C-alpha cells in the first residue's frame, strides 16, 4: 500500500501541503491587516461620505492602504471614478 501511495502521491498534493499553502496566504493577509492602524476603517468610511457628496461612486472602488517606506509612512488612496457623464 505504501508503495502504491508513494507512486500515486507524486502528483496528488498531501493534506499537509494543502494546510501549508492555505496558511501562507492567510498569515500574509492577516499580518498586513494587523499592522494597519485602528482608525483606518472609520477614516475610509468618512472619506467615502465626502466623495460621494460630489461623485456617485461605488464603495468597492475606494482602496486605502498605509505603508512604511524609507522611513516615511505613505497613505495611499485609490479611487476609481465612474464614467464622466454622471460625475460633475
Amino acid at each position, binding site marked *: 500500500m505504501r508503495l502504491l501511495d*508513494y507512486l500515486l502521491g507524486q502528483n496528488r498534493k498531501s493534506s499537509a501541503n494543502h494546510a501549508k499553502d492555505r*496558511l501562507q496566504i492567510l*498569515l500574509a493577509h*492577516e499580518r498586513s491587516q494587523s499592522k494597519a492602524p485602528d482608525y483606518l476603517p472609520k477614516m475610509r468610511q468618512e472619506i467615502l461620505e465626502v466623495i460621494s457628496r460630489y461623485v456617485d461612486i461605488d464603495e468597492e472602488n475606494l482602496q486605502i492602504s498605509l505603508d512604511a517606506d524609507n522611513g516615511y509612512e505613505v497613505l495611499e488612496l485609490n479611487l476609481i471614478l465612474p464614467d464622466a457623464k454622471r460625475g460633475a
Partner: protein
Amino acid sequence: MARVIVVTSGKGGVGKTTTSASVSAGLAARGHKVAVIDFDVGLRNLDLIMGCERRVVYDFVNVVQGEATIKQALIKDKKTPNLYVLAASQTRDKDALTQEGVERVIDELKADGFDFIICDSPAGIEKGAQLALYFADEAIIVTNPEVSSVRDSDRILGILQAKSRRAELGEAVKEHLVLTRYNPARVEAGEMLAMNDVVELLSVDLLGVVPESQDVLQASNAGTPVILQEGTDASEAYKDIVARFLGEEKPQRFLTVEHKSLFRKLFGK
C-alpha cells in the same frame, strides 16, 4: 538578573500548562530559582498539573489585591527544590488582575532572587493573556502542527510585537517556538504539517519538538510535570528544550519515525 518568560499560544489545549510545568521543573532541577505563575484567573489548572492543588491557600489575586504577601502565596514544590508555584484564583472575576498589581508581584519576585519567572498564559487574547505577556523578556510560543494553532500563534506573536512592555519601549521580546503533539509518522505520510513548515510559517526560532505521547496524559493524571517521568520521550524532549533555553547546543530529536521497516529503508524517500 531575573528573566520573565511567558508561555503562550493563543489557542487553548495545545500544551501551555504542560510546557510551563515541565520547563519550570527542568530549570529548577538545574539549580535555578524558579517561580511559575498561573495567569488563568477563573480556570486555575497549573496547580493540578504540578500536583499541589491541595496546598493552595492564597493565590495570585490575593497577592495582587494585598490580601496576602507573596511569601504566603508561593507554594514550594515538593518534588523539585528551588521551584515555587503561584496559583491562579478560582472564584474571582477576570478584572481582579491589574497591570500595576502584576508588575508589583513580578518586581517582588525579582527582588527575592528568583532567576526565572514563568508566566503561564490563559488561552485567547483577552486581558489575562495580555497581562501574562506584558512584562515578558522572552516568550515560549506553544504550537501544534495544525492550522488553527499555527494561525493563533501568529496572532499572539503580533500582539507580543505590538503590545508588550518591551515592544512599547522599542525593544524586542525574544521568541522561542515549542512544537508539541508532533507525530513524525503522520508528517511522513503527508497528513501533518512538518516542523520546517511551521518554523517557516511563523518565522520563530525552534526551541524544540515534543512528540505526541501517552505519557503527557499519564503525568497530568499523577500531578507530575512530564519532564520528571524519567525515560519517556516527552521527558527527554523537555530536558532538551530546557538545555537549549539555557544556551546549550543540542541536536533536534523526535523528528523522524524511529523504527523503519526494511521495505521503507529500501524504497522510502
